[in-house]
């Protein structure tokens, strides 16, 4: 799962011409460390939803990589 999320984050970053990441850490902030703005976050939710059938922002804002993992774990 972590590998897949890294791939999806990199797809979003690549689409905006931003620097790709080699590794994700749970404590990383989506906005500050991953440099995702609201358009990127919107796209990321769609890509995660397509893959896992879960809207990670459905009931509030997710701010770190670890929180994404948690959401996906919870619904397993």
């Amino acid at each position, binding site marked *: 799962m972590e590998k897949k999320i890294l791939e999806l984050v990199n797809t979003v970053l690549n689409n905006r011409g931003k620097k790709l990441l080699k590794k994700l850490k749970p404590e990383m902030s989506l906005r500050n460390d991953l440099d995702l703005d*609201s358009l990127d976050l*919107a796209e990321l939710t769609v890509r995660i939803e397509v893959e896992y059938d879960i809207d990670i922002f459905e009931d509030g804002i997710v701010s770190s990589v670890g929180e994404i993992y948690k959401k996906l774990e919870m619904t397993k």
Partner: protein
Amino acid sequence: MSVFFKDISKNQLVSWEELIEDLKKIRSFNKYCKSEDYYEIFKNIIISMLTGTEIVLLDSDFTDTELSALMGSAAYDDAIIPVDGQITQLLDKSSLIEKLSHTNESWKVSLFTSGTTGVPKQVTHRYETLTRFVKLSDKHRDDIWGFAFNPTHMAGLQVFLQALLNGNSIIRLFGLSLNEIHQEIALNKISNISATPTFYRLLLFPCEQQFLTVKRLTSGGEKFNAVVSRRLKEVFPGAKLTNVYASTEAGTLFASEDDVFTVKAGFEDLVKEIDGELLIHKSLMANSSFPIDDWYNTGDLVEVITNTPLKFRFISRKTEMINVGGYKVNPQEVEEILQTISGVEAVKVYSKSNSVLGNIVCCEIVCESGVELQESTIRLYLQTKLQEFKIPRIIRFVDNLETTRTGKLMRN
């Protein structure tokens, strides 16, 4: 032989004389008209006009579930009305047209709007509103129409009446393959075509020929983009392009040689713009199954050019604007940019609801045959043409675009 109707998909070729003979044999008709056979539909409409009775036009592909949602418990196959044989006796082409052009006020036709969401609603028109913009003159006597709409929809009905009341030939194009359409236009020397922009787009790509007999192309329903306009002029070098504003609720209201519509004298108190939206007075409207106030909100966003006389240009459908986190995106604008990319044959930009921004912009792209485009190439190009929030976040490559019942692009 003077052709009344030709449909190669059904091997039909009917002359005006044969039409009249067939009408004479009719002793009953069903006011609920549901058929895949255009000729059957046309005959039924003519009989209803001659007898001054209501006809309800139903799409041939309506399911039983849709029919019961539309009409409640009305049994559409149990509404047979006898036809007095006297009505059709001694008719010839000119007397038939003469009679039809004096259609009784009791005649009405009901059809259903093709909204992209929810159940279609029923609207009922009379002869006056349906023929408001029918042009009758010797100039139109020899017109040959390419029929590119569903005959049970408003636009199809308007083209049918224009052709019928001028004694013209009607050649079916709707639903045929691209090659068949090209062949029928050339073979029958079609002079007039009325169709949606989507129909024209599909007709043009690819098209190696030129059609010199076509003198008028009419379109409406969606905004024409520059790429399609240019290609139309190349393929139909002798044709004038007319843009028509019409809706199922109001019929045809305005026509224009370009994209600027002028409200004619006599209509100035019946059309207005409020908050960017076009409003139509109820006196111009058909009877409808839904209640309307004095003014009907068309949902069409316009840009006013002058107030007296009122001149305006359509910008978009109100509901089609995509609200991305408070930023409004006009999908047509994005589509027009995408269309300019070499190798792109057709595109659809649509909205997808999103928990972060409310909506995001998505698109589907059909590439030209043999062309493979990369998503990254398209993104890089769009970044030079559009503000970031207008760029589709999800780009899908597809073989075909989905369309609505009328042939308009489906956005959701």
